[in-house]
C-alpha cells in the first residue's frame, strides 16, 4: 500500500518534448541564371559569416588588446579559451545531436568524451594493443570516435529499451561505471585518480592535425609544443595554430552533423522527439534510428574528447568522464538552444566568456584586475557590512566563482528563454538563421 506512483510515471514517461523551432520549408526563390556555386554560397551565407568571424577572431583579439589594453582583454575571451570552446562545443553539439533532436537525454554522454580522450593518450603512450605509440594523431582521433560509437551501440542497445528519466539514469549509470573504473585502474598510470598524461619522451612535439603521411599538410597543436607560423604579415603563435587546427576539425564535424540533421534521417529523429508512437506507426524502426543517432553522436563526442586530450596532452577522470561533464554539455545546450545543433557551441562560448570575465586572477584580463586598476582607492577602501571593505567584497565575489552567476543565468534561461540563444533568434527570424538570413539580405538589396 505504499506504492503510490501510477500517474506520476506516466507523466514523466510522456515525451520530454522540447521546443521545435525547425521549419522544414526550404527557401526556394532562386533566380534561374544563377550558378550553383553562388546559390550554394547564398544558402550558406550565415555559415560563411560565422566561419569568417571565427577566422579573424585571433587577429582581432591581438589587435584590440594592443589598442585597448586591459579593457578589451577583460571582455574578450583569449584564443586559448576559444580553442577549448571549440572542442567542448563540439562535445556539446554531439550531446544536442542525440538529446535535442530525439528527446532522449543522454546523461552519460561524458563516457564518449572520456573514451576519446583516454584513447588517444593511451595510444600515444603505447598502451593500446596493435597500435604503435607513433600512430598519427589524426588516425587515433578517428579511431577514438569509432570506439566511442561502438561503445554507444553497446550502451544504446540496452538503454533505448527505456525512455525519459529512466534512459537518462541508465546512461548515467554506464558512464559512472566507466568513471569509477578508469579512476581506479592501476594499469593506466601510477596514480589513475589524477589521470594520464602523454609521455614527453615518446612525444617531444605536439600532436599533429592535418592529412596523415603528408608532412607539409600537418600542424602540431598544444600551447607549449605546437607549431608556429610566420607567413607574409601573419605571425601565428602555437596558441593561434591550435585554435585554427582544432577549429577546422570542429567545423568539418559540425557540417557532417548538420547534413545528417537536415537529411531524411534527421527528420525521422525529430519525428521521434515529437511523437515516437506515430513515427513507429508510419513504419520507421525507431530503435534503429535512435541507435544510429546515438552512435553518430558518440563518434563526434569521441573526436571532441580526442581533441581535448590532444591539446592538453593529458586527461583525468574528473575532467572527462564525470557526470558533471555531461552536465556542462547540458548547460551549454540549454543556454545555446536545445535542438538547434549549432546553439550549444554558442552556449559554451557564452559560458566560458562569463567564467573568464569573472575568474581571471592574473594580469591582462577579467573583470577583477580591471576593477583593481581603475577603481579609486576611496571606493576600494569603503566599508561594507561587517567591516568588509568593498575591495574585499569584489575579491570574494568576482574571483573564480563564475558558477554562481552561470547557475543563475541558466535558471533564467530555463524559465524565461526555454529555446536558448539560438532558439530565440530563430523564433524572431521565423526559421533557422541559415535559411532566413539570405532572404533577409535579399530584401535589403531591393
Amino acid at each position, binding site marked *: *500500500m*505504499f*506504492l*503510490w*506512483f*501510477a500517474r506520476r510515471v506516466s507523466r514523466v514517461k510522456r515525451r520530454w518534448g522540447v521546443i521545435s523551432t525547425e521549419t522544414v520549408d526550404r527557401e526556394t526563390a532562386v533566380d534561374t541564371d544563377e550558378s550553383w556555386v553562388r546559390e550554394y554560397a547564398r544558402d550558406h551565407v550565415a555559415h560563411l559569416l560565422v566561419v569568417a568571424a571565427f577566422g579573424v577572431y585571433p587577429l582581432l583579439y591581438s589587435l584590440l588588446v594592443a589598442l585597448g589594453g586591459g579593457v578589451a582583454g577583460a571582455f574578450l575571451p583569449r584564443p586559448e579559451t576559444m580553442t577549448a570552446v571549440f572542442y567542448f562545443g563540439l562535445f556539446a553539439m554531439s550531446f544536442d545531436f542525440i538529446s535535442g533532436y530525439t528527446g532522449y537525454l543522454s546523461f552519460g554522454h561524458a563516457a564518449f568524451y572520456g573514451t576519446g580522450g583516454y584513447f588517444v593518450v593511451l595510444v600515444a603512450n603505447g598502451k593500446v594493443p596493435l597500435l604503435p605509440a607513433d600512430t598519427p594523431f589524426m588516425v587515433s582521433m578517428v579511431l577514438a570516435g569509432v570506439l566511442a560509437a561502438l561503445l554507444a551501440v553497446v550502451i544504446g542497445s540496452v538503454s533505448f529499451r527505456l525512455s525519459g528519466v529512466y534512459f537518462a539514469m541508465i546512461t548515467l549509470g554506464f558512464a559512472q561505471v566507466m568513471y569509477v573504473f578508469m579512476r581506479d585502474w592501476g594499469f593506466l598510470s601510477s596514480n589513475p585518480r589524477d589521470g594520464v598524461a602523454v609521455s614527453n619522451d615518446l612525444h617531444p612535439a605536439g600532436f599533429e592535425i592535418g592529412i596523415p603521411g603528408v608532412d607539409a599538410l600537418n600542424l602540431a597543436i598544444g600551447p607549449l609544443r605546437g607549431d608556429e607560423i610566420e607567413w607574409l604579415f601573419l605571425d601565428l603563435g602555437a596558441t593561434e595554430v591550435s585554435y585554427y587546427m582544432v577549429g577546422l576539425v570542429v567545423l568539418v564535424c559540425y557540417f557532417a552533423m548538420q547534413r545528417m540533421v537536415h537529411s531524411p534521417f534527421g527528420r525521422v529523429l525529430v519525428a521521434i522527439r515529437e511523437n515516437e508512437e506515430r513515427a513507429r506507426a508510419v513504419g520507421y524502426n525507431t530503435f534503429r534510428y535512435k541507435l544510429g543517432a546515438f552512435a553518430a553522436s558518440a563518434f563526434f563526442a569521441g573526436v571532441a574528447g580526442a581533441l581535448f586530450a590532444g591539446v592538453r596532452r593529458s586527461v583525468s577522470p574528473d575532467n572527462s568522464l564525470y557526470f558533471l561533464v555531461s552536465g556542462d554539455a547540458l548547460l551549454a545546450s540549454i543556454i545555446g538552444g536545445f535542438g538547434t545543433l549549432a546553439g550549444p557551441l554558442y552556449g559554451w562560448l557564452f559560458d566560458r566568456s562569463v567564467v573568464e570575465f569573472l575568474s581571471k586572477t592574473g594580469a591582462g584580463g577579467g573583470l577583477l584586475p580591471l576593477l583593481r586598476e581603475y577603481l579609486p582607492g576611496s571606493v576600494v577602501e569603503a566599508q561594507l557590512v561587517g567591516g568588509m571593505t568593498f575591495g574585499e567584497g569584489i575579491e570574494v565575489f568576482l574571483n573564480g566563482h563564475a558558477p554562481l552567476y552561470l547557475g543563475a543565468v541558466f535558471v533564467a534561461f530555463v524559465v524565461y528563454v526555454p529555446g536558448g540563444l539560438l532558439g530565440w533568434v530563430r523564433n524572431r527570424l521565423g526559421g533557422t538563421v541559415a535559411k532566413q538570413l539570405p532572404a533577409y539580405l535579399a530584401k535589403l538589396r531591393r
Partner: protein
Amino acid sequence: MSLLEVEDVHTYYGESHVLEGVSLEVEAGEVVALVGRNGVGKTTTLRSILQLTPPREGDVRYDGESLVGLETHEVADRGVGWIPEDRRVFAHLTVEENVRLSVPPGSDEEAGLETAYEAFPDLREFADREAGTLSGGQQQMLSIARGLVNENDLLLVDEPSEGLAPLIVENVAESLQSVAEDTTLLLVEQNLPLALDLADRFYVVDHGQVVDEGSTEGVTTDDERFERLSA
C-alpha cells in the same frame, strides 16, 4: 436562477478548439444528461465546469457566482463534485482511505464511512483492500461513494456505465437514482436508454456545441433527434 449556468464556453487543448460555445443550464434537483458521439466535447464540458481545463472564453456560474478563475479545489469546496470517466479511484489507497480522503476536512470521517458503506454494502467487505484490485463495477461503486461523501450539491458524472456488464450497469443506475434524490446530477452517458431513463432533461452535443435540447418525458431512443448520435 439555475443552480448551474454554462454560458457560451470556449475551451482549447493547446491549439485545438474543443468547445465552440457551449451553453446549458441545470436547475437544482434535476438530472440532466449530455449525450453525443465520442469526442464531441462532453467530457471537456465537465472539465471546463470544474476548471480542470479552464475555458478561454465564456462563463460558468454556480449558485449565481462565477467559477472561472477559481482553482479546482475551490470549485469542489463550493459543492461541485466529479465522478470521472474510468472511475479514477486511487489504486494504491485502500477502499477505506479512498472514502476517508473524500470526506471534507472538518466533517466526521466515521460518519462519512458509514454513509458510504450503507449505500454500498460491498465496499465494507473490501474496506482494507487496495482500490486497484477491485473489479470495474466495484470501482465504479467506490467512485460514486466518494462523490456521495464529498458533500456536494451538484455531481458531474462521466460515463458511469462504460465498460461494465449489463447487470452491473443496472446496479450503478439504481445507486445513481438514489444519489439523485438529494443531489443535482449532470450526467454524460453514451448509453442512450440509460441516459433517458435517469434524466429529466437532455442536451445533445456535437462538434463542441449544443445542437439540441429537451425534456426526456415521452422521448424514446429512436427519436429522430438522436439520429445524429449513431452517425
